[in-house]
């Protein structure tokens, strides 16, 4: 649909104000809120994610696109209430203790939300205990840990150990520049990806597997 494409295009350019206006127009024209969300906002964000993976766009473009998406979602929120309850799954996300880097983590959040996954963002400097507590409290499906410092990576191992010792039914996904597949294998985490868009793809497939 013309209008939805237009919203998606504007979102990709980060034009937050225009996105909000057009989302309202689309609603006024009687287009279903869920359709606007999936075919305009999430679709646009999906394209940004793909382009980011291919290095066609970079961090600033993703951040402004996400800001535009949030503006659009704000307009849609009152119309989406009932569909919210049957979300596609829950993820706990945070940067590990001692580490304040959050740009990568925020991108992971944006991409996960772009796949319709509910994200509980614990921010930065999050201890292994807090990850576990929040996962239990929220009945989360996935714990996503980000680390950018070699000195803070060991905290991820503690998350894995605590999940095991408490026998929690939750998958652990890790990432951040110094993290790699070898480290993931070594500490026994479930998944590693090297960019945010792939993180969202993996999370989605984990949740789909869990559903069947």
């Amino acid at each position: 649909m013309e209008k939805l494409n237009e919203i998606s295009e504007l979102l990709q350019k980060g034009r937050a104000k225009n996105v909000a206006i057009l989302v309202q127009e689309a609603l006024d024209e009687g287009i279903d809120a869920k359709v606007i969300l999936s075919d305009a906002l999430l679709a646009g964000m999906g394209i940004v994610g793909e382009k980011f993976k291919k290095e066609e766009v970079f961090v600033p473009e993703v951040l402004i696109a996400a800001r535009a998406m949030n503006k659009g979602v704000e307009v849609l929120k009152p119309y989406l209430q009932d569909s919210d309850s049957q979300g596609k799954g829950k993820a706990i996300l945070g940067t590990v203790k001692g580490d304040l880097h959050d740009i990568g983590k925020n991108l992971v959040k944006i991409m996960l939300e772009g796949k319709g996954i509910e994200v509980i963002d614990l921010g930065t400097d999050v201890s292994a205990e807090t990850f576990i507590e929040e996962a239990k409290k929220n009945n989360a499906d996935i714990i996503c840990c980000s680390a950018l410092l070699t000195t803070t990576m060991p905290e991820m191992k503690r998350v894995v150990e605590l999940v095991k010792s408490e026998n929690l039914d939750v998958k652990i996904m890790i990432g951040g520049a110094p993290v790699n597949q070898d480290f993931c294998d070594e500490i026994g985490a479930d998944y590693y990806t090297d960019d945010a868009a792939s993180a969202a793809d993996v999370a989605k497939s984990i949740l789909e597997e869990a559903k069947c």
Partner: protein
Amino acid sequence: MLTNEKKEQLVSDYEAWWNHELKRPIIQVTLAKNDQGKAVSRGQLLDMVYDYSIPAQEVAKCYRDTFESQIYLGDAFPHFYMRSTGILGAMLGQTYTIDVERGTIWFEEMKGKELEDLQPKLAEDNQLYQRGIDLIKAFQEEFKDDIALGIPNLGGMMDIVESMRGANNSLMDLYDDPDEVKRLNNDIYTAYEMAYKNYMDIISQEKSMGYTGWTPLLSQKPYFISQCDFCCMIGPDQFEEFVAGTLDKEASLIERSFYHLDGPGAVKHLDRIIESGFGGIQWINGAGSKPIDDEGWTDIYQKVHNAGLLLQVYCYSKEELRFIDHIVNLLGTTEGLAFICNGQEEDKEIFESYLEKYNVPK
């Protein structure tokens, strides 16, 4: 400390290296002695450097124990510069905290200020800036030509913008207020140029072993290393718009200029960085990513070499000495290369065997 003969050899070999006339690689080996004597930790040194209640002369005296706790082999030499990356931001008003345990310092975001509120100017009487001067003078007096001296690690312009604004804000600013970002970047550059010239001038006034920088190459002419870690987050267009122009200016300001290329995310800008006119490139592969001798980095070494630039990498342990063989074999030359190696006293023989292999005087 080094003998006069050794110092002369270092000075003349490094000069030949900078002029692309040295027929061997530069290989520095700095080993930590088993007995660390009275040397204090990196974090404690950092703390002293920033503690105005401790006279600069006392800091210099304390460094003697540090220099004596190391063995300098091959092209290595004792040196001093004021840490840490981006200190210029603090001279321009950023607050900071020192983490003594980790030996690092954090420069804090200037919260609550809009982009246009940030109008940094370097004041001659700024305490931290003055401390930098006092330290250089104190080290000159204490060590004469036994050590080389570097200017404080001022940092990269956009890295300081990012640090002042906070990373997320600074990235959005590129879209929301590009002109103000350029204005701020330019103000920081003005301060940088002033600090650079004044510090270099002070180093030049007394005889030392030579100039060095936060990457310890030795030079008889002013030498410094430019950087922009921020660039790993932006694409080529924004690199051109916000970064490249300043790098061009830095490369022409600094007589012997080097660029610190940090991590896979920075590689996409290498061609433009080379165009800026730097004399050399330092390549850091980044924690967690493939080692220096991975095939994936071949392109970087070849580009730098083919452009006629000097190339420097680190070997952080005896296991990493293989990087020297890798790069020498790959480029088919021992010239124009520098390897800065660190290790422990007990591995001395292994390091010495590499010095011998590449004809580096011990």
